[in-house]
């Protein structure tokens, strides 16, 4: 039943194009929120509920609000016309980029197949994925394999990520020092 996936892809594509072309930044942010919605459904359909949840909470919620606050603090271009003019040289460059990438397409594994190397066929019979899926519960007593990997197997990584987020908070406070501590 990939009808959902195809229609979602169309939806996501439409909203991405609209985001790129809207001249009014506020409208672009609103459309970007719609894009985020579509993306979260796609993640859900691709069996990544944790990611979909995070995308929902952070992508649709927090990013939108931070963008809004920024344009509230700076400026919102007055829009005489709704859409921006398409920048032809940029389209050519981007088109070339996409074409080069697209030549890779036939060599990629089909979406959802278990022939991909990540699933440990052939030489690599014991990949991390296979190990996590088979042993995670026995080793960590956590049903959610994502949490098990996040907090246990890759705990050090998560620690680094937490520190990055912490540093980002400090960086924002430093950059906006004059405004915040005025």
């Amino acid at each position, binding site marked *: *039943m990939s*009808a*959902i996936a195809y229609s979602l892809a169309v*939806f996501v594509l439409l909203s991405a194009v609209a985001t790129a072309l809207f001249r009014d930044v506020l409208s672009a942010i609103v459309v970007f929120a719609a894009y985020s919605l579509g993306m979260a459904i796609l993640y859900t359909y691709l069996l990544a509920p944790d990611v979909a949840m995070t995308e929902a909470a952070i992508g*649709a919620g927090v990013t939108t609000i931070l963008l809004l606050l920024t344009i509230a603090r700076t400026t919102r271009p007055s829009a005489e016309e709704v859409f921006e003019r398409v920048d032809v040289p940029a389209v050519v460059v981007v088109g070339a980029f996409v074409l080069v990438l697209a030549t890779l397409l036939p060599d990629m594994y089909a979406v959802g197949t278990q022939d991909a190397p990540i699933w440990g066929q052939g030489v690599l019979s014991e990949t991390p994925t296979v190990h996590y899926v088979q042993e995670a519960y026995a080793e960590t007593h956590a049903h959610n394999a994502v949490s098990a990997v996040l907090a246990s197997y890759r705990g050090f990584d998560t620690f680094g990520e937490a520190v990055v987020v912490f540093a980002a908070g400090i960086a924002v406070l430093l950059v906006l020092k004059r405004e915040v501590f005025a």
Partner: protein
Amino acid sequence: MNGELLADVFLGAAALFVVLAIVLFYRVAAGPTTQDRLLAVNVLGTNTVVILALLAVGLDETSFLDIALIYALLNFLMAIAISKFTVERGGVL
């Protein structure tokens, strides 16, 4: 007996909801005011909640309902936040 058929019904309905969302995208693109776009995105958000709930039954993953619940909350937050910001720099600031 009806289990598989039922799953197909739900997935089909979800696909139709996505199609409706694409149709709704006309309003998002056409505007004309920011409120119109916001309104359309709000309807999209409600549709998203429904689609997620349908996927939860269709794919037999009840945990997807959690995502739907989060979305129901965030949709509301987005609506009040953006609708505030369309009025004199949000008024709150």
